[in-house]
């Protein structure tokens, strides 16, 4: 159990600014601050909610996590060493508004781009792990994201480290045009090499996992796990509804829907992810 001070630090520094609360306001919030579940609206004691890894104790709703949170959730404490921190995005197309949006995202997240990768251990097993951050332009995949994932997969191959990718993304980054589209091919090809070499590659899909990322390396895991209730698919439900003038059921593209349609190996609650990945790696390798 953490102290009051550390809890506030956690909220401020590590959890990012979810639930639309500003960092400034957090300073004044008393220890027993309530957090409202985005799904069922229940007011939860923030301390409990954090202990539950931002999962609503009432309805099971899994709130989104930042990339740093994702990584810390899944690796041994203090074991993470970030890779490719030098990579930073450009604006190759001089796309309207791109630089401004990105700078805002960088300020908000303390990240250079939407994907964080690195080395860590998981129950003492060396792994390569990456996570995407939905707060950073919807976790979209541009050149830096694609390059980081590719380098992660290549280094995993070289060092025979199992690779784990945790996804939360709206797809390819429009603002880098074709260069973003090419990251789909580049990352998919890198997965092929990793699999040929017999190095495990595990995908964890979280809310949301869609479009260009879902249609490339995120659908190619040896095993694909998803958190409950995540939205997983290619074309967004609203776009399909508009195009075909239809109404889609509420659970369309949910983890449970994708499970039923054969696209997932497992649905794993957040609290069980680390354990399940560890077990799977043990069953493949030990």
């Amino acid at each position: 159990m953490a102290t009051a001070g550390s809890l506030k630090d956690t909220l401020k520094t590590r959890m990012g600014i979810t639930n639309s609360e500003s960092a400034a306001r957090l300073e004044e919030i008393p220890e027993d601050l309530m957090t409202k579940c985005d799904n069922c609206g229940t007011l939860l004691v923030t301390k409990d909610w954090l202990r539950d890894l931002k999962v609503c104790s009432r309805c099971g709703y899994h709130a989104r996590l930042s990339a740093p949170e994702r990584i810390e959730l899944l690796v041994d404490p203090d074991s993470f060493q970030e890779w490719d921190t030098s990579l930073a995005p450009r604006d190759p197309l001089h796309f309207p508004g791109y630089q401004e949006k990105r700078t805002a995202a960088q300020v908000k997240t303390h990240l250079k781009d939407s994907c964080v990768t690195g080395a860590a251990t998981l129950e003492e097993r060396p792994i390569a792990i990456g996570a995407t951050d939905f707060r950073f332009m919807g976790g979209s995949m541009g050149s830096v994201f694609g390059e980081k994932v590719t380098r992660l997969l290549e280094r995993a191959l070289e060092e025979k480290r199992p690779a784990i990718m945790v996804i939360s993304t709206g797809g390819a980054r429009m603002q880098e045009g074709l260069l973003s589209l090419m990251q789909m091919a580049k990352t998919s090809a890198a997965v092929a090499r990793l699999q040929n070499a017999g190095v495990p590659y595990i995908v964890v899909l979280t809310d949301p996992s869609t479009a260009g990322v879902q249609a490339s390396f995120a659908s190619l895991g040896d095993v694909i796990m998803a958190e409950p209730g995540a939205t997983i698919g290619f074309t967004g439900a609203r776009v399909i509804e508009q195009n075909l003038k239809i109404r889609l059921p509420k659970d369309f593209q949910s983890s449970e829907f994708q499970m039923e349609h054969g696209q997932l190996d497992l649905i794993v609650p957040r609290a069980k992810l680390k354990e399940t990945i560890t077990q799977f790696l043990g069953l493949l390798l030990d």
Partner: protein
Amino acid sequence: MLSRWLPFEKPLVEIEEQIEELKRLAARENLDLSDKVRRLEDHKRAVMEQMFAELTPWEKVQMARHPKRPYPLDYIGALCSEWLELHGDRAYGDDGAIVAGFGRFSGRAVAIVGNQKGRDTKERQERNFGQASPEGLRKAERVMELAARYGRPIISLVDTPGAACSPDAEERGISEAIAHSQLIMSQLPVPIIVVITGEGCSGGAIATALGDRVLMLEHSYYSVISPEGCASILYRDPAKAPESAEALNITAEDALRLHIIEEVIPEPLGGAHRDFGLMCKSLGATLERHLGELSQIPGPQLIEQRYARFRRLGDFEEQPSVAHPELNGNGPKEAASQLNGL
């Protein structure tokens, strides 16, 4: 006439109407107006040359979508002395949006896959406007793997507004199908030449575009998202598609500049549909040249080069290395223990 002319071609319509009028007059009055006609035709040609050399990205999109634009089966019919189309994914269905088979092209047996749109309303629906369903991509994958087994080069003709957009496609794993097709194409030990012949849009396009050479016809486009889709997101107004087309850098010249493609294949004046014979000659010669070059390269080397080709795509900078302050154990220990060890 509506279907024959695109909006920006209006000046041509006027000149052509004048020419027709003159010809009718000459015939009716038995006059020799051939000189005037010839001059008007020269004028028309000059206008066209300027017009089609300066098409805006949005005009290129319209060219790529032109209802008379040749589709893969047109090229196959013209370029191949033999053609045997294969069907089905051996699991669920046969997708009309994807054609796949073996053909003989300038004496050489090749596999060809392509997105096929329909010409009339009925065929368009049967072929789902060239938007591949999962079973279509799995059919293509099967045929490409067959080609690889027998050392046949692969030609992939891309002309799609995107992958199938429907609950059905989602249910049967359109994401998986797009991803898996790329995974497979990256490993085939035979030459793969991709030609974007019309629309090369989004995941539906890259699904079958992982080749050793990627070429574009002059008036095709290649984009991560449709201009309309981009406009909806960027300007909350699909009518701003022309601006989006500009911003997205989707023309063949853009793609060449960004090293996304190897070559732009010129089209006949006014577009591929205006002189299909000439278009085929140009496309055929280009394909032959690339096939000739690639067929010298052993399979494993092809795979390595293909990987390297896509590996280098992307534009980013490498700044001095600074780790994220929250990671690498630099953050407060208690905070780290908050999520771990629970």
